[in-house]
């Protein structure tokens, strides 16, 4: 019998939600690390019992926790994130140079094949890798060394590297995204990087089509079609069919194309999900209606999914790492809100129900499909 494990990071702890394959009844475990900000938890595809978690507070800084038993027990591992060489400067909010300073880990991406290898996307933006199960971390400094670093600037959440996508067909290829610098790709396992932002248009930077400076909120890829990428930018939903070399706008009939999350159906590479948010200064759904939008055509044509979601007086946000899918048949879709709800759909988005309603603000949602 299949089982689903949902890993939820919140402002005040982590929660683990489990169900059988029917996904009707859920057990809620937590809070783990109560009181700490849990930006992200993720399991190793190579060993589902190996989990990594990012734990931080303003008081005591950053910790990394590791579990070898699917989240029942945890142990702190290495938390020394030191930039390679002289870190240099990026742009501050007002455009002045500001020194690179480590603040926190936004995203942990375990290797597809080795449970002891894991990548960390951090603020101020950089990519780190551990090959000893999180004990020690080394920066893949070619990213910041690309040369455009002095032009990167923080988004409202900080200068964060929030998206890491490992290409299952090519171990040398990794995609990352930074707010607000844009998307980057390496084809040599992290030695060298290049920005992949052609086709993005951003009115809030001096040159709207610049090579870097774009506030990319999240990027998603279907593992069976790794050259196709879907992006939720600050404004605009975008698609690339050439591994990021160029992008086309696919916002189509969305009521608004601002948002944070984007994800792809587990079995249908052209079925894409977003949650439109009213604007960059009004981080809540338009009209107070929480609607997931689904495209079955790879973009442009979108349908509102509302069954089971609040359709009045709803003013929560859905943050960039707070949506995930399982790989059961039918595909399950999950997302968490800043109001503390985690919603699940066991039928690819047609019907939704909350698993939990009253958690702290949800920062991230990841799903493991266990057999």
């Amino acid at each position: 019998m299949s089982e689903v494990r949902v890993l939820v990071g919140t402002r005040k702890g982590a929660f683990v939600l489990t169900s059988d394959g029917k996904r009707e009844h859920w057990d809620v475990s937590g809070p783990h690390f109560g009181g700490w900000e849990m930006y992200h938890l993720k399991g190793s595809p190579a060993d589902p019992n190996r989990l990594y978690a990012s734990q931080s507070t303003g008081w005591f800084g950053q910790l990394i926790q590791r579990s070898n038993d699917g989240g029942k027990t945890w142990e702190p591992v290495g938390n020394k994130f030191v930039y390679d060489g002289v870190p240099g400067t990026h742009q501050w909010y007002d455009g002045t140079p500001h020194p690179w300073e480590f603040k926190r880990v936004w995203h942990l991406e375990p290797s597809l094949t080795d449970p002891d290898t894991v990548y960390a996307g951090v603020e101020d933006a950089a990519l780190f890798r551990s090959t000893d199960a999180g004990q020690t971390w080394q920066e893949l400094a070619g990213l910041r060394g690309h040369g455009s670093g002095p032009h990167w600037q923080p988004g409202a959440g900080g200068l964060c590297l929030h998206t890491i996508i490992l290409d299952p067909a090519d171990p040398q290829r990794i995609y990352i995204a930074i707010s607000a610098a844009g998307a980057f790709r390496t084809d040599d396992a992290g030695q060298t990087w290049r920005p992949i932002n052609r086709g993005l248009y951003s009115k809030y930077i001096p040159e709207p089509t610049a090579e870097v400076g774009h506030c990319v909120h999240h990027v998603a890829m279907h593992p069976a079609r790794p050259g196709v990428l879907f992006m939720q930018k600050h404004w605009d939903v975008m698609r690339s069919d050439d591994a990021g070399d160029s992008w086309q706008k696919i916002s189509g009939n969305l009521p608004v194309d601002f948002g944070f999350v984007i994800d792809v159906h587990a079995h249908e590479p052209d079925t894409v999900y977003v949650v439109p948010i009213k604007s960059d200064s009004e981080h809540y759904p338009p009209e107070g209606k929480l609607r997931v939008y689904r495209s079955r055509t790879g973009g442009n044509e979108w349908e509102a999914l509302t069954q089971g979601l609040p359709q009045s007086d709803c003013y929560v946000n859905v943050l960039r790492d707070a949506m995930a899918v399982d790989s059961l048949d039918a595909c399950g879709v999950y997302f968490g809100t800043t109001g503390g709800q985690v919603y699940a759909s066991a039928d690819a988005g047609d019907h939704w129900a909350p698993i939990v309603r009253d958690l702290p603000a949800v920062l991230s949602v990841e799903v493991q499909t266990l057999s």
Partner: protein
Amino acid sequence: MIRVVLPAHLRILARVAGEVQLDVAGQATQRSVLDALEARYPMLRGTIRDQVTGQRRPFVRFFACEQDLSHEPPDAPLPAAVASGAEPFLIVGAIAGGAR
């Protein structure tokens, strides 16, 4: 023997209850006490002071004998009552730290 009181979050992280008692070689200073604390509880590295610069984290304070020692030099001797174990060395999360 030096007595150290950790804030609740760090007691959980270090899996200790109540005070920590440390034997500190040489003079009792902030640095020598924190060195001994981190040697005994490696999971606390980076949570009280930066691992590279050794700087106290901004939202952490050091109190003892009803004094704020946060801005004392790290190699300054701690009060005699702390060095003798009569009074604890308090590591405190600043009251402003829980903003979110």
